[in-house]
């Protein structure tokens, strides 16, 4: 049965202060699925997750069950690492999830670790999230005390450990290989892939890195079945998802919604419309790394495949007449990313917003690759002078060519994450940049 606005899974305990404690979580139905899952064979759990069409909520939307299947069958030591580094601007769901429902994450991890035969597992939590760290740490201690974690989980003979590892401020540690380096006590710089973490990850062992929200969905899948979960969604995207809506709407918030919901419905029906009676100018669909949409593109469902393929979304251009090529001539429209929906109203200063995004990437580049290190710095500098009204006549072309020079030429996807929105904003809001340059010439 498809989900509707009343379908709440991972957000069902939001606002329930009690559920943070083990006793409260158990009272609200928590840990009921654990015994059922631990009695299943690991490969059967993975099969359920495959059937469920659960897709990663960390940014790339990769099918979770398929990813789990990449762990070599003969692997001796495997790790599950939960990515709780949430720092993609516009994204504020994982922090909320961990704060309200830490035991759901733990239950999801125990079930997932059983599927992966992973014993030593980690939650990498962003350093600035001190309140959530304390909540999680407390929950982990409770789970150990009650026998949900340890050498013999609820008497099943299964061993499962969770260690909460605090970061110390670095957006790049959200990238999974940078995260693994950071977990190993190194500088958080991304590794070259391949090898992929599922084959050679933490401490050289096969490792699955999953987002907080992804793992929190697993107990529901084990409880009610993969087919049920797939049925909540649409196409190849199972379940519901959390969207974080911020910016110029009347009622911003974190909402669990069906995969079929469109941006227009989200803004008008869930968020009370654009604030101050204004109209939409642009929508960032899934964190600032993703190319924006304009007002004519908002009737597309906020779903992984639709955002990549729906022809109502115009392709991102490198320059007028030349489409950006994702490889093999595939156009780049946009992607669902991290669920961070940012609404910009019709009075918004687009070049200034773009400058703020570029400032972020320039600050967060880890500096390993020249195109990213130098390129993001230039994007920040040039977009700043355009925004300030001091742009030079060729600056739009300059920004496009810098961005195009970064995209696809770096070790990790941070380079693309800076380049794509730059090109996307120029593609769809060129007039706003031209107006700034015209003003600069007049001055």
């Amino acid at each position: 049965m498809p989900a509707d606005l009343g379908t709440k899974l991972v957000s069902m305990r939001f606002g329930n202060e009690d559920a943070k404690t083990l006793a409260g979580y158990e009272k609200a139905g928590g840990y009921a699925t654990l015994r059922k899952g631990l009695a299943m064979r690991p490969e059967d759990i993975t099969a359920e997750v495959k059937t469920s069409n659960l897709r990663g909520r960390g940014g790339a939307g990769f099918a979770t069950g398929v990813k789990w299947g990449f762990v070599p069958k003969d692997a001796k030591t495997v790790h599950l690492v939960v990515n709780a580094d949430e720092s993609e601007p516009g994204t504020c769901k994982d922090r909320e999830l961990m704060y309200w429902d830490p035991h759901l994450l733990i239950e999801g991890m125990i079930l997932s670790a059983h599927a992966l035969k992973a014993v030593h597992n980690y939650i990498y939590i962003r350093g600035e999230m001190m309140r959530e760290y304390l909540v999680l740490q407390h929950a982990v201690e409770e789970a150990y005390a009650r026998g949900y974690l340890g050498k013999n989980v609820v008497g099943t003979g299964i061993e499962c450990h969770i260690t909460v590892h605090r970061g110390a401020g670095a957006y790049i540690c959200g990238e999974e290989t940078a995260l693994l380096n950071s977990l190993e006590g190194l500088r958080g710089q991304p590794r070259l892939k391949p090898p992929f973490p599922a084959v050679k990850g933490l401490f050289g062992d096969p490792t699955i890195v999953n987002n907080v929200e992804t793992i929190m969905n697993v107990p529901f899948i084990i409880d009610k079945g993969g087919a049920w979960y797939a049925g909540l969604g649409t196409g190849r995207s199972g379940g519901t998802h959390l969207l974080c809506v911020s910016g110029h709407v009347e009622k911003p918030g974190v909402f669990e919604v069906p995969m079929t919901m469109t941006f227009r419905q989200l803004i008008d029906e869930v968020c009370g419309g654009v604030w101050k009676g204004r109209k939409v100018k642009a929508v960032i669909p899934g964190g600032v790394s993703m190319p924006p949409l304009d007002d004519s593109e908002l009737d597309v469902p906020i779903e992984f495949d639709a955002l990549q393929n729906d022809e109502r979304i115009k392709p991102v251009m490198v320059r007028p007449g030349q489409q950006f090529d994702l490889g093999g001539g595939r156009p780049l429209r946009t992607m669902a990313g991290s669920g961070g929906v940012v609404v910009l109203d019709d009075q918004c200063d687009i070049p200034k917003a773009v400058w703020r995004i570029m400032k972020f990437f320039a600050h967060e580049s880890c500096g390993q690759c020249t195109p990213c290190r130098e390129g993001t710095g230039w994007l920040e500098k040039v977009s700043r002078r355009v925004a300030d009204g001091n742009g030079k006549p060729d600056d739009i072309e300059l920004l496009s060519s810098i961005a195009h020079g970064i995209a696809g030429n770096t070790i990790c996807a941070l380079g693309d994450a800076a380049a794509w929105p730059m090109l996307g904003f120029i593609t769809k809001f060129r007039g706003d940049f031209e107006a700034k340059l015209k003003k600069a010439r007049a001055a």
Partner: protein
Amino acid sequence: MSLEFSADATKKIAALCERYPTKQPVVMAALHLGQKEFGQLSDDVLRLVARTLDLPYAHVYGVATFYTMYRREPSGVQTIRMCTNISCMLRGGYDVLAAFEQKLGVSVKTGGTTTNKQFTLIEEECIAACANAPCAVVGTKYYLDITPDQVGRIIAELEAQPHPESEVV
């Protein structure tokens, strides 16, 4: 001068060493603890961390200088992390930052620490509370939907009830 960790920190580090196959991953927690106990990560603190975990000094130095929360310089008792990233900027985040600068008499560009060393103001990137923009976090305390006229009250509240980051480690 050779520094030592407190008994409590030593115990915490020893317990953490049990959670990983080697001691190296504990470097991040040890640096957090060092910063808590000594206020900043001076060369001596880095040496202490290196000695405690049997790591080369250069390794510890490399880690300490990579992450923005580790501080090589002294700072205020409380750190106000004010977000100005996209969602906060769209709803007046820079005005709130300016109000903090004005009330505290500091500039984020020149370090942001008050003369009485009570506060350090930082222009922070997205703190994952975008739906309540503009927002700031001070230790474990979030301030949400801030308007510039609330800033004076927030500072007074923090003076009465401090939220130092060190309460976490």
